[in-house]
């Protein structure tokens, strides 16, 4: 098999696995430590969250140190390098933010378990970001999803169970598509490695296989028309889990999609095979934003907004240009901060961390809690693509590469979607700044101050990335 992997070393390079292993092994420490803590309350939560954050930070530091190098493990099935490192860092940041938001999801005796599941899900997303063959993709996807099925159902509300069941069934179906597509691709080419797929001749079987594979991806990215599960699942899941899903699931799946689009599809045929994905991205930008217009529950609103935002990111891949990949990564990083920041604000506005936060809760927020309102305005302005945020800079870069790659229609649809989205996001801004009788507003505050840390970091990053749009430069060679 080795010729298929080009210059990558074959064999198990343990350095490649080190960050993912750190994330995957931390839960064992947490579960073990939890055995000795039988009391209730803050200590038990603090220990679980603390160990988890330490583990994630260690993984992040190792990952950052590996940035200039390439590693490959399992005969090239898992490749670690600039591309996957950026995705993995996004996953790590999002997981830390989720932990800050949650301070432990569920009852005290569940915290160790839920934290462990969260970290295992994160390691699944990290596996996906480095996956270079069809089997590792599936392995990572299932590892990511299995933890999330449980986490969705953790709260006692009936919508939580509905969400978990819906997620389980629809996600399994998506996995089915992906798996069937993988099987057909293997049948067509005789190899599961992405690099081997690129060299294979075009047959009907290959086209069908890649089509089914992409359907599975579109499901997981919740691109229109495969998006219907997203709002219900987001609504039912606990808010930190929703925040996690809105970033980590999308980041992991985007990594797989990018590698598939850039490295697995033969360049001469890729543009034809991927056309349906660009159409789905265009539909997502328009329909996602149109559907968000009608939402008043923040979780559903952010779910639809996420559908549209992923449409923008996918649009950057159009034409499979090197710059497009870089700007997709930049926008994904920006989306991570803007979206997690918005979720952290919502979390700070609910007392038990599990309530439904609707639009009316924002009424007059600027006069009650000005700092929170200022931060939320920044995140919403960013999501709407206005300056001075990464939302603006990222969007202009995506517009530029998409237009430059000959997909001017996609850029036009992106503009249309953004115009619609202005109403979605500014509806919340307007609610915050409108003068109301504050006596009639429910002013709930979270008992957990940690989300403030997430809000502060996200606000700084949303602004700073817009002014200094650092794009990773050595991304492309590692996909190929």
């Amino acid at each position, binding site marked *: 098999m080795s010729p298929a992997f080009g210059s990558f070393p074959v064999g198990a390079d343990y350095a490649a696995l080190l960050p993912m292993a750190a994330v995957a092994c931390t839960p064992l420490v947490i579960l073990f430590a939890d055995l000795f803590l039988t009391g209730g309350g803050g200590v038990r939560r603090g220990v679980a969250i603390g160990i988890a954050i330490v583990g994630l930070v260690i993984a992040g530091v190792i990952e950052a140190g590996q940035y200039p190098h390439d590693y490959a493990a399992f005969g090239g099935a898992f490749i670690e390098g600039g591309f996957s490192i950026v995705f993995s860092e996004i996953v790590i940041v999002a997981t830390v933010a989720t932990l800050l938001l949650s301070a432990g999801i569920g009852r005290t005796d569940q915290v160790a378990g839920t934290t462990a599941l969260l970290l295992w899900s994160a390691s699944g997303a990290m596996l996906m970001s480095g996956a270079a063959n069809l089997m590792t993709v599936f392995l990572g996807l299932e590892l990511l999803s299995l933890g999330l099925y449980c986490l969705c159902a953790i709260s006692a509300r009936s919508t939580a169970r509905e969400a978990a069941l819906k997620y389980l069934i629809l996600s399994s179906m998506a996995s089915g598509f992906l798996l069937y597509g993988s099987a057909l691709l293997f049948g067509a080419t005789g190899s599961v490695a992405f690099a081997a797929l690129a060299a294979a001749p075009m047959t009907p079987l290959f086209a069908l296989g890649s089509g089914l594979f992409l359907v599975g991806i579109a499901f997981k990215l919740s691109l229109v028309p495969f998006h219907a599960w997203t709002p219900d699942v987001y609504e039912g899941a606990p808010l930190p889990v929703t925040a996690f899903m809105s970033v980590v699931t999308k980041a992991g799946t985007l990594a797989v999609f990018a590698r598939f689009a850039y490295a697995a599809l033969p360049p001469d045929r890729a543009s034809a095979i991927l056309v349906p994905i660009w159409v789905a991205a265009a539909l997502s930008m328009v329909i996602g934003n149109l559907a968000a217009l009608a939402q008043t529950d923040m979780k559903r609103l952010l779910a639809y907004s996420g559908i549209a935002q992923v449409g923008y990111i996918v649009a950057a891949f159009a034409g499979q240009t090197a710059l497009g990949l870089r700007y997709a990564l930049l926008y994904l990083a920006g989306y991570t901060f803007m979206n997690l920041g918005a979720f952290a604000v919502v979390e700070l506005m609910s007392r038990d961390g599990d309530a439904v936060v609707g639009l009316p809760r924002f009424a007059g927020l600027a006069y009650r809690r000005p700092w929170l309102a200022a931060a939320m305005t920044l995140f919403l302005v960013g999501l709407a693509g*206005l300056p001075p945020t990464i939302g603006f800079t990222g*969007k202009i870069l995506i517009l530029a590469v998409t237009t430059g790659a000959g997909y001017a229609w996609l850029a036009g649809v992106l503009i249309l979607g953004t115009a619609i989205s202005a109403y979605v996001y500014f509806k919340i801004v307007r609610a915050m700044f409108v003068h109301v009788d504050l006596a009639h507003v429910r002013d709930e505050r979270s008992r957990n101050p940690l989300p403030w840390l997430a809000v502060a970091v996200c606000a700084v990053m949303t602004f700073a990335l817009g*002014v200094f749009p650092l794009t990773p430069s050595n991304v492309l060679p590692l996909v190929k």
Partner: protein
Amino acid sequence: MIVGALVLAPIVLGLALYALPHRAARAGKGAALVIAALIFALVCLESQAPDVSLRWLSRPFAAAFHLGFGPISYWLVLLLALVTFSAVLVVRGPRARGIAAQLLVLQGAMNGLFLAKDVLLFALFWDLMLLPVFLVLVGAGTHGRTAWKYLLYNLVGGLALLLATAAFGIVAGTTDVIGNPALQAGIGATWGAWIFAGFAFAFLIKTPVFPFHTWMPETYADLPPPVVAVVSAVQSKAGLYGFLTIGVPFLGPEMVQARPLMFALGLVSLVYGAFVALAERDAKRVVAYSSLSHLGLILLAVFSGSTLAYAGALVYIIAHGLFSAALFIVLGAVEQREETRDLLRLGGLGARNPQLAGALMLAALAALGLPGLAGFAGEILILTGLYRAGFGWPAVIALLPIVLAAAYMLRVYQSIMNGPEHPDLPERRDLTWVEGLAVAPLVAAVVWLGVDPASVVAAVMAGGAHVAGVR
């Protein structure tokens, strides 16, 4: 450094005003006034400040945070500093702190727009300046629809601008081009028309020009007087400034192609705005429609391709800024006293409020183009420029609304100040010295510019070599 401070200082200090307690309206206003005065002094003293430039993007096209004075932008920044100072002076009410803060943020964003030497930076500030006005409209809360209309119209324009900027960057390889004569090669036929269409759409909405004007009367009517003074005086000039600094040098052939359409839109705005202004009952809406009419005239000048008309456009841009700010401030003073802007309900204020009447008279005379005041200087330059460039008929048609301006402006004055005193109107004090201080520099500048427009004209004529390259 100085030009960077002109952009950042108002924004940062304006936001810092929010750190003051919510009730500290007087302290907030006082602090904002000091800041506005300092910025005005800075603009006056540092007219030769060097550019600042920081790299922003290198791919897919080069872009920089490049700020600097240009021949036209210096005057607009000066106008903005003066109008902002006057506007902050007349901020009042329980929300004074917030409005003063938003005025400063707006000033910073618009300084950025005028000082930007990079098209992408221009687009950034174009979108940024929407936010303070939207927030003030939301806070004013008179009609919920107005804020949406303002935001959505202008944002759609801003997005077209953004797409056009991206295409501009891809084609030209850099957006760091404004005021750089070496790079005025033009965009080329394939993309030029599309890029021009994107820019023009944004500029026409912002100005506004018929048929994109429907957001304007409502926005002007609902904004508090100090903010509408700034928006009407300066923000409405952003589009015309864009045509002059981006359109003329880089999209010259497209501007010539678009001339018949733009002339038609400009003339329709001129005539339509004047007739609606004659019929409106709301004093603020009269001035709003008169702006539509006046800015239509400037649009003609911008598309005429004549350097003389460009000079007239700049003079008239400044003149309109000065007298519309003065008009809105005085009308705000009237509304605050009488609690109505309805011309049919008002009347007879002049007898007991001679200073208020005098201030309104001066502003109205400037607006109707009395010779010796700034409006006349701008109009005569534009009309002469149009005529000399061979556009005889448009110049003749443009004369009619200028005559109508006398009718509607005097009607405003007459309805408010003359006639019998209305017993049901509350009797209030005459113009306070603070309000007088706000209006006086604007009126003084109107007189100065009317008597001696040469220094402003020279700014355009000096840069005329490259501006005139169109024809």
